[in-house]
């Protein structure tokens, strides 16, 4: 709704943009009628909503093609990118955060802590550009941009995925590390960890068997929030790495005043975030038995 109103008041007429500056006023008016752009905004909005309910994402003003299949294709690309980024963040953050917490009095823990602080401050697109400069331009190990679907060429897919996924994952990993660290620090102070030690578990096994699942509860919250951040990060990173994902589609849509397209992409992103939040809630219940059956 907000997006709809916002796009509508932006200067620039979708029909005019679609046809080019030299198009005659008659042609523009004709196109406007064809897309229903001459009708009042509320009517356009209701039309679009009606389409959604029938599973129809509508037709692009610019390409005149159905948007549904295109959004679906692009969504797969973006999801692959985001999931890869998330995995990199997790693989980085869980061990690093745990070590930082377990050795928070020692030099190694403090050094890691400082390093993650630097990581937090770097925006994803900058990380992307730096990665391209080092690994693609200087070392030539990996392609600087492009996208190949995994079904077409899995090796090329992975090679092209590494840098964009890293630029998303490194930054989120640095942020996540700090949350893992504080969650593990909290758990280390818990009485049940002392009980575990008193049973005869050594410090690390005690933390592994009794601490990890408890520390995971607050971390999962952050993870859910981070997925939203990652989706936004993906928009920018797709631009930097020329990846045909939902982000590039969104940016194209905005620059071409393709109202319906932008509307659809934003809606898909919002649904994705809602779905993630739902999954996070399910995960909570799986992790923490105190949340089950409402008993406290």
């Amino acid at each position, binding site marked *: 709704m907000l997006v709809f109103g916002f796009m509508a008041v932006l200067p620039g007429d979708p029909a005019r943009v679609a046809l080019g500056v030299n198009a005659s006023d008659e042609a523009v008016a004709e196109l406007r009628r064809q897309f229903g752009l001459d009708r009042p905004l509320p009517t356009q909005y209701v039309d679009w909503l009606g389409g959604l309910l029938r599973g129809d994402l509508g037709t692009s003003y610019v390409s005149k093609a159905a948007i549904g299949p295109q959004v679906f294709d692009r969504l797969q690309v973006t999801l692959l990118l985001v999931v890869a980024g998330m995995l990199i963040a997790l693989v980085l953050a869980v061990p690093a955060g745990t070590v930082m917490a377990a050795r928070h009095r020692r030099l190694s823990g403090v050094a890691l802590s400082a390093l993650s602080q630097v990581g937090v401050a770097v925006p994803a697109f900058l990380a992307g550009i730096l990665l391209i400069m080092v690994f693609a331009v200087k070392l030539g190990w990996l392609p600087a941009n492009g996208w190949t679907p995994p079904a077409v060429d899995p090796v090329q897919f992975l090679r092209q995925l590494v840098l964009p996924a890293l630029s998303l994952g490194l930054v989120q990993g640095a942020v996540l590390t700090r949350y893992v660290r504080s969650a593990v620090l909290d758990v280390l102070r818990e009485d049940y960890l002392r009980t*575990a030690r008193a049973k005869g*578990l*050594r*410090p690390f096994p005690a933390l592994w068997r009794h601490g990890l699942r408890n520390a995971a509860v607050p971390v999962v919250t952050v993870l859910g929030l981070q997925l939203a951040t990652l989706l936004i990060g993906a928009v920018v990173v797709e631009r930097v790495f020329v990846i045909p994902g939902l982000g590039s589609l969104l940016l194209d849509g905005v620059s071409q005043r393709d109202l319906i397209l932008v509307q659809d992409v934003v809606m898909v992103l919002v649904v994705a975030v809602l779905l993630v939040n739902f999954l996070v809630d399910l995960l909570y219940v799986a992790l*923490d038995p105190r949340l089950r059956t409402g*008993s406290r």
Partner: protein
Amino acid sequence: MTPDVLTVQGLNVSVRDTQLVSDVDLTVGPGERVGLIGESGSGKSLTALSILGLLPDDVVPSGSVRLTGIDHDLIGADERALSRIRGRDLAMVFQEPMTALNPTMRIGDQIAESMLIHHTQPTRTAARAAAADLLDRVQLPADLLRAYPHQLSGGQRQRIVLAIALANDPALLICDEPTTALDVTVQALVLDLIVQGVLARSSALLFITHDLAVVATVCERVLVMYGGRVVESGPVHEVFTNPRHRYTQGLLAASNLEAAAPASGRTNLQAGTASRPRLTTIPGTVPAAGHFPSGCVFRNRCTHATDLCATTPAWSGTPTTGYACHHPAGASHA
């Protein structure tokens, strides 16, 4: 004479420059039940945690802690050696049952784990069965095995912690104020289960509390701690009827100990309910750690203190029965 189960000699505990526990000697014989009493802040928990090797990182013990059957000193031993002893030869029940159990693990798994760690049960199934048996011994139904801690009351949780501690028939069980957090009706049951538990295994018991009535019902011998030092020790009935140290005397006067009969196998759990008419309190408060006076640690609160008390009083009596006071109570010669 059989060797003692636990022998602590010259135990000191300090954090940075502050000494928290000084020169503690303590022994517990096989199957013996020894109480450790004293006001809050007197160093009881630190003594227990030193024995177990579970002091916080910045708190450092020195001295000697020997356990029967273990051929090395526990102070200064490495984690690997200590973790083999903890939970098998030496077990502990902590004060706060509400937080002592892992909230995300089933009760049965938490009990079975201690037997699996030390391989006292060969398989997961055997350990599970043994856990059910342990539950029965603490008078809880076997279907609690599948429960999570939040579904249990404080008293039930403390019985689970006790079951975990007793799982491997330890030579010594240490209980640090195990019933302080429980309401009175549950206290008696938990105390009874502790005593039954150690009796059934002929385990020795080191029982920490500041409730004299509890000591009187549970223990045979008692050590009185104040300011990080043991100021008096001896058989419960002797110390409680004829205290020598002025601090012990003050503690007794301040507590409502009614006909506290020392336990001998059978326990009397009704102590401490009837109240005495007049209770006196020890003047002043326990100083903060590191702010106890030099010499006799009690002298700034003691009505009998003289200049002599500025020197540390020597231990009078035998290692297991005696006191450290310049002006002992009930002395015929002083």
